[in-house]
């Protein structure tokens, strides 16, 4: 299989401002054809704005948006080879399901027969075969969602943009749709760019995630990379649950926090550099006071079905969140235990590039250590 070297969509130092407010700052990325990408971030982080720049609803203030290497800043929306599934679906209320899906093909002057085939195929793809004659207001939210997807796909886009399409659905339906969207993407083999504020959704569906905040891409990588190696406080907090405490990297592979030294697996920092230490709640476990690396007092415990969610406090006053299968009564002093590779170190103000460079260096060194 030969890979085309030109990315299907690329942003080259894109800035976007509305008046005095800068919405996007120096956005620079490239995406490959045929993968499932997710833009993840809180509301107002600029993720939907990126979609609008790709779909042509907005133009960058400076920088370029490229499609297969061609600058497409001023291409009108209707001429771009991308289609959008809108957050509130934006189904045309004056048309039934069939006419909604047929809207794009008809504008392209496809024959009636070809249009019909297309619509039938698309409705089949989203499992709404029998719904062609329905009015939009007769559909449930989940069904409207499927129509919106079918309508966008009926235009044969090279890239499908999905703007928080699942946010209005209830939990169960959302889970089902996540799987289905992933399935549709694989089946069609086109590029999906999916916007969401739900980190769980992003981790479950994506080949590649861009984490956004304040109009900046904070970090991008595979779901595993981003979960395991958050680059900064924001990413660590936003993706999954985190215990973050201040600390010092005394030397390579030796961290100091909560008044104690801990062996760990991070390297490449200045000696005695001030850092933040991240420990994921699911990596922590409770044990006896003697065996614990830290001693904490249980503040609160709640049952979550497959585990207990425990809130505890150490003697320095740091709060610890622990997910464990061991139940402990509130007020009891217990030991807290974790492995060296569970300790993740974040430097202050480290850019993504610096981070990647250090990571590479440290991965080179790591085999020697083991």
């Amino acid at each position, binding site marked *: 299989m030969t890979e085309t070297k030109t990315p299907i969509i690329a942003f080259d130092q894109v800035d976007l401002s509305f008046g005095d407010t800068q919405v996007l700052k120096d956005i620079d990325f490239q995406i490959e054809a045929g993968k499932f990408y997710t833009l993840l971030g809180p509301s107002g982080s600029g993720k939907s704005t990126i979609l609008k720049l790709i*779909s*042509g*609803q907005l133009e960058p203030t400076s920088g370029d948006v490229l499609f297969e290497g061609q600058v497409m800043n001023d291409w*009108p*929306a*209707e*001429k771009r080879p*991308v*289609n*959008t599934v*809108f*957050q*509130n679906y*934006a*189904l*045309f*209320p*004056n*048309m039934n399901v069939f006419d909604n899906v047929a*809207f*794009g093909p008809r*504008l*392209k002057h496809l024959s009636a027969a070809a249009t019909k085939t297309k619509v039938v195929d698309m409705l089949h793809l989203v499992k709404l075969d029998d719904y062609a*004659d329905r*009015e939009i*207001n*007769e559909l449930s939210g989940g069904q409207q969602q499927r129509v919106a997807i079918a*309508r*966008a796909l009926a*235009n044969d886009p090279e890239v499908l943009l999905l703007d928080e399409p699942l946010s209005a659905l209830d939990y169960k339906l959302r889970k089902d749709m996540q799987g289905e969207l992933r399935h549709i993407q694989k089946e069609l083999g086109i590029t999906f760019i999916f916007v969401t504020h739900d980190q769980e959704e992003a981790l479950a569906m994506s080949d590649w995630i861009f984490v956004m905040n304040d109009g900046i891409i904070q970090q991008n990588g595979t779901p595993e990379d981003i979960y395991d190696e958050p680059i900064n406080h924001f990413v660590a907090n936003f993706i999954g649950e985190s215990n973050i405490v201040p600390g010092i990297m005394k030397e390579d592979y030796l961290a100091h926090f909560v008044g104690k030294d801990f062996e760990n697996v991070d390297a490449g920092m200045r000696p005695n550099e001030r850092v933040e230490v991240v420990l994921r709640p699911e990596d922590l476990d409770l044990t006896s006071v003697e065996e614990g690396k830290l001693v904490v007092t249980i503040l609160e415990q709640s049952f979550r079905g497959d585990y207990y969610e425990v809130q505890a406090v150490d003697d320095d006053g740091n709060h610890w969140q622990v997910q464990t299968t061991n139940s402990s009564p509130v007020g009891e002093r217990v030991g807290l235990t974790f492995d060296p590779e569970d300790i993740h170190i974040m430097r202050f103000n480290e850019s993504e590039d610096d981070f990647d460079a250090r990571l590479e260096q440290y991965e080179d060194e790591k085999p020697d250590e083991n």
Partner: protein
Amino acid sequence: MSKFKWSHLYLWVVFALLYLPIGFLIVYSFNSGNVMQGWQGFSWSHYQELFGDAHLLEIVLDTLVLALLSSTLATAIGTMGALWIDRQPRELTKNVLLSLNNILLVSPDVIIGASFLILFTALGFSLGFVSVLLAHIAFSIPIVVLMVLPRLREMNQSLIAAARDLGANSWQVLSQIVLPVIFPGILAGFFMAFTYSLDDFAVTFFVTGNGFTTLSVEIYSRARQGVSLEINALSTMMFLVSLLLVLCYYLIALRPKKPAAARRRRQREVNP
């Protein structure tokens, strides 16, 4: 029904008063006497008189043609106005335009009539059907704008983005998405404009010449000379037409729900 309520009594009294004059007109249209006093027995004679009065029937026809023409044109221009106001990027421009729009809506009829009379005279325009038509279009436009504008505001803006996204140009967005979506507002505007035109007396009275007259103006001049029950017969007919129009309007206004319900019925019949 189970319990007597003062509020219901109040409503009955108000509605009785509201319909008393209309009922009165209708009842006396069947009076065999010639005045709206003293019931002298049932008769169709005033209806025969009405249908034999070619002059009056012609005026009725003129009035209807005028109302149809003026409301159609006012609806077209008013819809354009609403689209134009809605796409103004600045809130201030919108408000200024809307205030200007509403001037004719809140102005007393007499002022509109008098100022239009000055306008037509200043332009050297001869008074007659065309001046009345222009005046009716002019005072009906603002209500159309007011009926259409909320629909445009309520319209989900992503519908337009979606249509463009799927490849529609400006004209296709307008004709296939925007106009169909705001159609109920346009229809309501048309009906309002139609009623405004039918109901107008003062403005027409000012700007009509000797050659053209509408029903309102005719009734005014007849009523001043003396009451004829032919007018009652006409009122009754017009009341029935109004009722019909209201019914039509509500049938059309409720239309979106109909086909769906009908189809569901059909489906049930096919696969029980």
